């Protein structure tokens, strides 16, 4: 199909947008001490997967977010005995989210999104250029 190349860049943009969404949700929950199962929030990480586009006959790889997994690294501990979620030792377990890391991740995602957009526009220009042949 003629627009298959555009589709490839769209999958790239969609994947980067999911990365930004996940980083935003991590940032928003930097202080959530109660999430699912009453446990503190765990940082989420999207897992990317390359998928060979079989129809095109040439090695074109689309990208998909195959799953979103929880980061198993340990929770941060903070001494705060007055907190309602503090343990008997006076420590509160806080999410394993590092705001700085999330910000860096977001900036990297924006840059890659832009690169995908450039590729999309280049391909679009090429397709429009071929239309000029019927105007001869």
């Amino acid at each position: 199909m003629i627009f298959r190349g555009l589709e490839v860049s769209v999958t790239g943009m969609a994947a980067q947008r999911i990365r930004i969404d996940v980083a935003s949700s991590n940032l928003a929950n930097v202080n959530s001490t109660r999430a699912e199962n009453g446990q503190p929030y765990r940082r989420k990480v999207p897992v990317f997967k390359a998928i060979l586009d079989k129809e095109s006959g040439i090695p074109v790889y689309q990208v998909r977010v195959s799953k979103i997994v929880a980061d198993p690294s340990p929770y941060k501990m903070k001494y705060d005995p007055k907190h309602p979620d503090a343990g008997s030792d006076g420590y509160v377990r806080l999410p394993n989210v590092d705001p700085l890391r999330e910000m860096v991740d977001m900036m990297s995602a924006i840059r890659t999104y832009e690169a995908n957009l450039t590729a999309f526009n280049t391909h679009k220009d090429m397709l429009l250029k071929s239309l000029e042949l019927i105007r001869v």
Partner: protein
Amino acid sequence: MSELFSHIDNLEEKASFFLQRVKVIQGNIANADTPFYQPVDLKFEKIVRQQIKLRKTDPKHIDPFPEVKVKIDEIKTKNFTGYDQNRVNIEEELAKLAESSIMYKTLLESMKKELAKLKYAISGR
């Protein structure tokens, strides 16, 4: 196709190669964050048809006239890899994208000129 259009055919073949190459590069850019992904590239190689006729008498024989015009070349780059083993160099991919797009547009412009010449010859104006 007749001799009249053979030049345009040649240009068309090359232009279509660059369009294919752009798709492959788009795939590389889309996978700039996929762990273990290795970038791919296409190589244009025209196979000259042999004059001697060879016959295949066994299915295991290699095809004497391979109709390969575009060779697929999987690059083993020695690029720096991050912790995720991804070898895509986004600057390099964008440069290749620009190069292929310019080549494509140039070839299309040449095709337009060829067609205009034919039109001139036919109509006389």
